[in-house]
């Protein structure tokens, strides 16, 4: 079975541009979360979507937005890119009705470099 897939794997943007990152969860998973991992740091929570609704948001500016589609795939959008947005963006999925005891399943990430 396919795991969590993310695209693109690498991309380079310049300051002020906009970026869209995509994620397909594991088949049957209805929850998708996004994390930002800056070099030398642990992943930081950005968003969680469940059944196409935002269920949680981390401490990120409004330049960051996301959505979940009827097929449970998700997009993360970042506007007005800053140098500090350079990071590995990780998507994670979890099954329907997952209790707090369950683990997340991560994709391999999209590495964004902002010049």
């Amino acid at each position, binding site marked *: 079975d396919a795991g969590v897939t993310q695209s693109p794997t690498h991309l380079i943007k310049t300051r002020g541009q906009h970026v869209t990152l995509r994620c397909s969860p594991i088949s049957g998973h209805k929850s998708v979360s996004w994390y930002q991992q800056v070099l030398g740091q642990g992943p930081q929570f950005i968003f969680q979507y469940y059944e196409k609704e935002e269920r949680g948001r981390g401490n990120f500016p409004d330049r960051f937005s996301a959505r979940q589609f009827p097929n449970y795939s998700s997009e993360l959008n970042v506007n007005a890119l800053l140098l500090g947005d350079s990071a590995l963006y990780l998507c994670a999925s979890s099954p329907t009705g997952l209790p707090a005891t369950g683990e997340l399943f991560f994709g*391999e990430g999209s590495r964004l470099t902002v010049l």
Partner: protein
Amino acid sequence: AQSVAQPEDQVNVAEGNPLTVKCTYSVSGNPYLFWYVQYPNRGLQFLLKYITGDNLVKGSYGFEAEFNKSQTSFHLKKPSALVSDSALYFCAVRAPTQRGSTLGRLYFGRGTQLTVWP
């Protein structure tokens, strides 16, 4: 507020020796604790978790972790390290008081780079 501390940025150990990667946490209520591993340019892979019950948890690839409530610690261990264990290890915590479907939020430590030399 929930938080995780990994006091060592780097751990070096010889192949065949036991290894320990340390983690302490701060959370309201009983914690749900996780260990993940990250290989270069890859995503995070789940190793093991502690939810309740036996304080010694066994996971993938021969790893285990010991939950110590009094010391608020959840150290990752392996009796005999392999060169292939060299990677970045993250400890994470989730608070059981999270409501509704906000179940995806994990709080991660900064990570510990494990290097096992031949």
